[in-house]
Structures are given as structure tokens and as C-alpha cells.
């Protein structure tokens, strides 16, 4: 069974030989593993895992594509005006979330006069021919190929900042709707350009962190009103073209799982355990309508306690596999606290407990 067949059968809740697999790693994790015996890079770690997925592209359209001006720097960080017009401080040679210092699009007037026209006028910002080549490569390897991109809520936060966007959700909801709509238009236009190159992906993997460890950032009602219509539009676009849809968000989203189903999302990833998400609870209630992808707790991985990790994988796989709609992924990115020996054991547990 190829990876593509395996993932498609997962979506159809049909028998598979084993659960599909994918994972993500912090760069520091790969560096540690290389010191401990990993031959190669993250792609080799994924190959050893037996990953079934092949990304084709990453779409996060910016209003000022290509702009990147270093404003200041020190030994550890550099402060940059980026393609979104904002100023952010990034680590040099190290992973981590940047510190957003200011946002160029700080009022609706600036959005209307500058950012909106710039977004709409910006060229396609990915290499569509490369995406088509990756599609061919994925087909040859039997992988499940997918487009990847950012959805409206994440784009909104990047454009105007957390505080402004969350306040605007109350005080200027039409502005929020407009930004989400324009962003979605451009992402879908980008994906159309990939399809025009001859790629026929199996799915669409949408990224947008709309929650934190306590709850969604905004209420389910506000999400339904302001962002969800464009989530549904992305899902409808994909379904019309024969693709399945995976939605990625960190955080506690137990209050909006039904809205994900209603939007047409086929799968939810990575199901963050440390935010209280647990497929042993959600697979029985939502697993027939929403495939579950992930949920293996990186905090438990980081203990390097193999008994604890084995129990985590055994019990969550059992819950997920009962629906036939489950794929392995850590619940976030594997952190550098996890040794290479531990990760090799994790692969063996995934193999042992992930067989149907």
C-alpha cells in the first residue's frame, strides 16, 4: 500500500495496513540527533519514520513580497522590517517565534489605502513550477501530495497584530472580514496557479493557530461570524477539485470541533495534548466525521521515559484507530529534549501499535 493509498483510505475510513505517519522537528532537535547518530537531516528522520506526506508549496502571501530590511542587529538577534511591513526581532541561526515590535498595517485606513491594494496587486509568491515538480516527485514516491498555506486568522494576526486584530473583532468586524476574505482570495489564486502547472494534489493542508492552551482566542460565535466563512470557502474550493482538507491549529479547540466539521474540514492536526486535547475523548465523539492526526504528547516524549511514551502511543493509537481515521504526528514539533535513541524507540512503538 502506498502512502497516498493509505492516507486516502484513512479519509474514507477504510482498512489500511498501518496508520499514516508524519512529524515535525525543531532544528535544534535535528542538530542533537545528528550528534547522536542520525545520518542526514529532517528529511532522513521522516524517511526513517516512514512519512506518507509530500508538501508541494507554502503559501502565505505578503503585501510587499521580497521586502526584508535589517534595521538593527546584535549577537543573537536581528530586527527586520519584513514583507508584511511590520518590524519583528528574529533569532539568528536558531528557531523560535519572533517578537513582533510593530505592525505596518495598524489602522483600517492604512489597510484600505495601502495594504489591501498591495495584497491584491502582488504577484504569485511561490514557485508554481517547482510545486508541480514536487507533485511529480510525490506521485513517483507514492506519497500523499498536498498544497499548504495559511488561513485567514493567522494572516490577520501577522498583518495587524494580535491585540489590534482581537479588538477589531469586536469594534470593526467588517475590517476583519475583509482582511480574511482578501487573504483567502489570494491563497486560492496561488493554489490555482499550481494546478495550472499540471499538479493534481490529493489535499490541502491549511495552517492557522486560532487557540492557546485555555481556549480559542475568540469565542466560537465570533469565529463562526468572522473567519469560518472563509475556512468553508477554502474547504469547498478543495472539495470541488477532489482534494481533502487538513486543518492545523495548536491549542484547545474543543469548543469549535463541530464548526470544523461544518466547514468541511476532513482532518484536524496536531491536536495539542498540553492544551488538554485528547483523542481518547474526541475520537469517539468526532472521529467518524473528522479524522484525527497527531496528539502524541511532546512533553512525554521529552521525558525520554520509554514506558510513559509507549503507554501514550498505545492508548491514543487504540482510540484513533478504532475510527480508521487516525494518522501519527507528535502534538506539535519534537523538541530537542528528545534523544535520538528515544525517537528511534518512538518509531518502533508507532510501528508496533499502528498496524491494523
Amino acid at each position: 500500500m502506498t502512502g497516498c493509498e493509505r492516507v486516502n483510505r484513512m479519509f474514507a475510513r477504510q482498512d489500511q495496513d498501518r496508520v499514516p505517519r508524519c512529524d515535525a522537528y525543531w532544528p535544534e532537535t535535528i542538530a542533537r540527533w545528528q550528534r547522536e547518530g542520525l545520518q542526514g537531516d529532517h528529511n532522513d528522520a521522516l524517511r526513517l519514520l516512514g512519512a506518507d506526506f509530500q508538501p508541494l508549496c507554502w503559501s502565505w502571501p505578503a503585501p510587499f513580497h521580497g521586502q526584508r530590511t535589517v534595521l538593527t542587529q546584535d549577537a543573537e538577534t536581528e530586527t527586520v522590517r519584513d514583507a508584511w511591513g511590520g518590524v519583528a526581532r528574529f533569532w539568528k541561526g536558531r528557531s523560535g517565534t519572533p517578537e513582533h515590535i510593530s505592525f505596518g498595517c495598524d489602522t483600517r485606513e492604512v489597510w484600505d489605502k495601502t495594504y489591501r491594494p498591495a495584497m491584491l496587486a502582488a504577484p504569485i509568491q511561490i514557485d508554481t513550477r517547482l510545486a508541480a515538480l514536487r507533485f511529480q516527485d510525490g506521485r513517483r514516491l507514492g506519497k500523499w501530495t498536498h498544497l499548504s498555506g495559511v488561513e485567514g486568522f493567522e494572516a490577520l494576526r501577522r498583518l495587524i497584530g494580535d491585540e489590534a486584530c482581537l479588538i477589531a473583532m469586536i469594534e470593526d468586524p467588517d475590517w476583519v472580514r475583509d482582511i480574511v476574505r482578501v487573504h483567502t482570495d489570494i491563497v486560492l489564486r496561488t493554489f490555482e496557479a499550481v494546478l495550472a502547472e499540471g499538479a493534481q494534489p490529493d489535499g490541502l493542508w491549511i495552517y492557522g493557530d486560532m487557540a492557546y492552551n485555555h481556549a480559542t482566542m475568540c469565542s466560537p460565535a465570533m469565529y463562526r461570524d468572522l473567519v469560518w466563512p472563509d475556512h468553508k470557502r477554502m474547504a469547498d474550493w478543495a472539495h470541488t477539485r477532489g482534494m481533502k482538507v487538513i486543518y492545523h491549529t495548536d491549542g484547545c479547540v474543543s469548543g469549535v470541533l463541530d464548526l470544523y466539521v461544518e466547514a468541511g474540514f476532513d482532518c484536524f492536526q496536531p491536536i495539542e495534548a498540553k492544551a488538554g486535547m485528547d483523542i481518547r475523548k474526541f475520537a469517539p465523539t468526532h472521529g467518524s466525521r473528522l479524522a484525527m492526526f497527531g496528539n502524541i504528547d511532546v512533553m512525554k516524549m521529552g521525558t525520554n521515559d520509554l514506558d510513559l511514551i509507549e503507554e501514550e502511543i498505545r492508548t491514543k493509537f487504540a482510540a484513533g484507530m478504532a475510527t480508521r481515521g487516525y494518522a501519527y504526528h507528535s502534538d506539535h514539533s519534537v523538541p530537542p529534549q528528545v534523544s535520538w535513541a528515544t525517537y528511534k524507540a518512538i518509531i518502533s512503538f508507532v510501528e508496533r501499535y499502528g498496524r491494523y
Partner: protein
Amino acid sequence: MPLLTDLTAAVAAGKRTDTVRITQELIAAGTGPGIIVEQGLVPGMAIVGEQFKRNEIFVPEMLVAARAMKEALKLLEPLLAAAGIKPKYTVIVGTVQGDLHDIGKNLISMMWRGAGFAVVDLGTNVSPEKYLAAALEHKAHIVGLSALLTTTMPAMKETVRILRAAGLTNTKIMIGGAPITQAFADDIGADGYAADAGTAVDVAKKLVGETA
């Protein structure tokens, strides 16, 4: 003359214009600035914290409430200073070394200010030495450490170790952030852990000996 309860309701609802207007009217009527803060504004933010904990409101509603309170405090701060009224407790807050994330820290800072704490925000990527220096300078009652990433949790542990080694007997250490748990707090010897911005007020009050 408006009542202090009207001010509480305006803050809790995030009505900035009403909050400012009622504060001005209370000042004009001779109500003491300390009373306006303690009996008008702080109870409003307490309502917000409780509703937030119960998922009855979410971050947007919390933000507009905190902003309303901030606008009122701009009017009151000169009067508080003139009257010699200072917050009873001081909190040092920052995101630990190696972590540039700040929204969680900012939300918690807003809620602590809303509860009447003086908050000294050290920003992001704060070294253990900087936390220690600030704790000593401000005679902090609480040092709050935030981390978003699993990769920066060791920096939190190191910060707690250095603060403990300095023997700050009257300073409590609180931690929080996406990957943080009570078990981790216990493991590294922190005095308190808060899962969210609403709970952070309760935990801070308990740590300084006030009822939550």
C-alpha cells in the same frame, strides 16, 4: 452622580467611553482616587477574570476591558500619586531567555494591573540576571516567568535556580505559558503556576497572602 457599581459594569463590558466618563464624574464629585480604583475598576476586572476562566468571554473581550481600565487609570494616576497611594504589591514579569513571544505575558500583565498590582514588564528574552536585578531593585513580591516554547523551558528552570540561590525570601515565583504545567512548576521549584490570565490573578493573590 454615577455609582461605583456603574463604573464596575462599564469596565467589565469594555465600554471605554463610559468608563472614562464615569471616572471623570466620580472625580468631580469628590470620590477619592483610591476608592475609584479599589471599589470601581478592580471589581470590574475581577468580573472579567472570572468570566474568562469560565469561557464566557474570550481574549477580545478581555482586551477591551483592560483598555477601558487603562484609560481610566490615566486620569487617576496623577491623583493617586498626589495622595501618596501606591499599589500594595509589585510583580516583575517577562518572557524567559531564548523566547521572544509576548502575548501571554502581556495578557497576564493586563490582568495583574487590573487587580491592582504594580507591574514591571521586562519584555522578552529576559536573562536570569535581569530578573534578579529587577526583583531586588523593585522589592518584588512576585516574579512572573513566561515561556511559549518547549525549547525555552530549561531557561525557566535556570531562572528559578538563580532566583532561589539569591535567597529572595520574600519574593514568590510564578510561571506560565503554553507548555507549562503544575507538574513542571513543582519540578523546578516555582511557587505558583497559572494556566491562564484569569487564574493568574487568583494565584498571585494567594501567593501574597490575599484571598483570591
